[in-house]
């Protein structure tokens, strides 16, 4: 491996940056943001150098022994292969653009330095997940990512809603991580190692190594992905996480962190047997479906995109479950481009609208914000899977995977979701950028500064071209043994190999598009609630998942807490501690009477004692 030290530098630069900002430059916005941006951009440059020197098909590890307790050996090591290097590009590349964008977006905020410190901490943690060569290190980074996500969602902690959302995200994630930890322990107990390569070797040598626990272990590990990638039933935190600043939504809750679950599944795919993959695919498909339905009736621009993220994550998880890591990672990468783009463009709209997020207050912004409009259009087309935008290729790969695996139910669901995706995305698109201005803010909207529009343009380029620049080649080389490398033209024409899914995808797009066009082209209010009635209310209220959880789990938890509180207050503290304390107090009071303070009483008692002692010793 050439330049063996570069990955370490890539990993630790953001951590150093976070430390330097927190310790020294918290007073200066500009210096702090430049340090943070510098760290991640330098990481991107070093990634390019490293990949240039070693090539994409290369695979290697570099590690230091960290601790050794009995049989447990934990390395602090980095795994470098096509999968992690592509993710390095995504995290440092997309992340870098979002860092730059944040410089413009957060300019007015007085805690900008703290923001960048958290952002750097996040980048470090995410790189830790990507580069980890064993489950332990991945789990540590996994938790660090949870912490930084908590810090960033709750960045505007003066708002109670932001604080609540941060707590919700953290706790829901912890629920998933609990299962993940159990899964890791189970794998270690059964296979005796945590290193990915060693695990893969032992599974390859003996496919039944996990024995009867294979399904349980797989599903427990999937619990981690369920939390981080917000899969049903732990999906409730992601929409609320939109309380954080928009760049955070773009970086953490669209492009990178929520993708960590999918990445982890692909990294440890060899651990899953057919049964657990089956469950995974259905959970993914179900999440994708309900999230797409919820998105149809949301009115907050960021929430619509958040539900769309949820839905696309469901797609990816479903594809992993359908034994298609390559399409899943392909979609993850293109999704990182166009979803980050959509979020950043939405952020630009929000800034232009003076922090108004309700789409029914917007309208006709295409003339006021031309660059935002153009880039948002590209993001929309990519998300909806219009050829030749990147989303078309990755979505087609997913549909083709479902079709080839003969999972016709999931294929149907996926096509239906594709239509829904187009519908709600174009609903947003028409209401925000077309029609009449629906408020004064919309009339006085303005285009954002260059530091914000430039990342938009770069992301738009990748959202457009991401389908045929070799992303599948790189992932393919990771997962398929006899992988042949396609030229750009072959990639361009790849969907025609299996035309049926492609046609289905395009038909779905057409249906969604024309439905949205007819309903929302010049709408000033949403016509859908009247037509759908109760269903629309259900969608708007997210199928009452929050309320159901509130009524069941949270209520049950409150009840348990009340019982524990009662036991603590009355039995432990009242009865047991009270008895001990009261007894001590009482005997102390009684014994105090013996202490008269009179010298001669003491002398008398002393003599009495001596006399008694002598009597017992000598007297008998």
């Amino acid at each position: 491996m050439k330049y063996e030290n570069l990955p370490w530098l890539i990993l630790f630069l953001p951590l150093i940056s976070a430390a330097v900002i927190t310790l020294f430059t918290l007073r200066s916005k500009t210096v702090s943001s430049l340090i943070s941006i510098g760290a991640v951009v330098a990481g991107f440059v070093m990634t390019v150098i490293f990949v240039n020197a070693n090539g994409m098909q290369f695979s290697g590890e570099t590690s230091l022994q960290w601790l050794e307790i009995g049989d447990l050996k934990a390395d602090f090591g980095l795994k470098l292969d096509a999968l992690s290097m592509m993710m390095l590009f995504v995290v440092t590349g997309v992340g870098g653009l979002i860092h730059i964008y944040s410089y413009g977006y957060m300019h007015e905020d007085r805690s900008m330095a703290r923001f960048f410190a958290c952002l750097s901490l996040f980048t470090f943690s995410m790189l830790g997940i990507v580069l980890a060569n064993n489950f332990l290190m991945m789990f540590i980074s996994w938790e660090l990512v949870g912490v930084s996500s908590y810090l960033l969602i709750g960045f505007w902690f003066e708002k109670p809603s932001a604080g609540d959302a941060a707590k919700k995200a953290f706790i829901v994630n912890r629920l998933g991580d609990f299962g993940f930890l159990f899964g890791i322990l189970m794998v270690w107990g059964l296979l005796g190692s945590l290193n990915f390569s060693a695990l893969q070797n032992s599974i390859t040598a003996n496919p039944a190594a996990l024995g009867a626990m294979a399904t349980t272990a797989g599903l427990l590990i999937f619990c981690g992905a369920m939390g981080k990638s917000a899969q049903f039933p732990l999906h409730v935190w992601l929409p609320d996480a939109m309380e954080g600043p928009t760049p955070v939504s773009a970086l953490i809750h669209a492009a990178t962190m929520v993708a960590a679950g999918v990445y982890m599944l692909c990294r440890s795919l060899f651990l899953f047997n057919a049964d657990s993959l089956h469950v995974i695919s259905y959970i993914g498909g179900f999440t994708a479906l309900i999230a797409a339905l919820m998105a149809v009736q949301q009115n907050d621009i960021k929430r619509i995109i958040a539900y769309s993220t949820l839905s696309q994550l469901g797609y990816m998880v479903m594809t992993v479950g359908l034994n298609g890591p390559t399409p899943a990672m392909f979609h993850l990468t293109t999704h990182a481009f166009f979803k980050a783009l959509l979020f950043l463009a939405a952020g630009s709209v929000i800034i232009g609208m003076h922090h108004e997020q309700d789409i029914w207050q917007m309208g006709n912004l295409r003339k006021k914000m031309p660059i935002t409009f153009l880039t948002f259009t590209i993001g929309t087309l990519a998300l909806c899977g219009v050829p030749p935008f990147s989303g078309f290729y990755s979505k087609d790969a997913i549909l083709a995977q479902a079709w080839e695996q003969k999972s016709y139910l999931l294929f149907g669901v996926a096509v239906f979701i594709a239509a829904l995706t187009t519908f709600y995305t174009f609903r947003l698109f028409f209401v925000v950028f077309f029609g009449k201005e629906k408020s004064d803010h919309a009339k006085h909207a303005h285009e954002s500064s260059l530091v914000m529009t430039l990342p938009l343009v770069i992301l738009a380029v990748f959202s457009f071209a991401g389908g045929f620049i070799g992303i599948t080649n790189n992932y393919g080389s990771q997962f398929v043994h006899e992988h042949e490398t396609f030229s750009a033209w072959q990639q361009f024409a790849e969907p025609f190999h299996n035309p049926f899914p492609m046609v289905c995808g395009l038909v779905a797009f057409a249906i969604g598009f024309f439905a949205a066009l007819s309903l929302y082209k010049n709408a000033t209010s949403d016509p859908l609630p009247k037509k759908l009635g109760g269903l629309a209310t259900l969608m708007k209220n997210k199928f009452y998942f929050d309320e159901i959880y509130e009524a069941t789990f949270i209520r049950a938890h409150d009840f348990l807490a009340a019982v524990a509180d009662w036991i603590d207050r009355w039995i432990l503290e009242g009865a047991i501690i009270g008895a001990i304390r009261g007894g001590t107090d009482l005997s102390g009071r009684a014994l105090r009477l013996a202490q008269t303070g009179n010298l001669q009483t003491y002398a008398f008692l002393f003599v009495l004692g001596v006399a008694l002692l002598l009597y017992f010793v000598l007297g008998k």
Partner: protein
Amino acid sequence: MHIGIQHYLAVSMILFCLGLLGVIMRRNLLVIYMSLELMLNAANLALVAFSRFNNKLDGQVLVFFIITVAAAEVAVGLALIVALYRKRQSAHVEDLTSMKL
């Protein structure tokens, strides 16, 4: 009448009990102090008596030590009583109850 060790010990015990009674009953610190010395001397007497009747010198040697230490102790004790009197204007034990809470 032959005077045996019992007689010496009886005197010693009487002296000791008188001293003890003084320590317990008297109120004046100086008198308590003198009673204390009386108890010491009662012990000395017993030691000397045993020494004589057992034909061993150990007891008498011990008595010399006790007398020496008692002399030093008197010096310290009297000094303390004087200091106490100067501070409290009293040498009565009833007034010395600061050990009580």
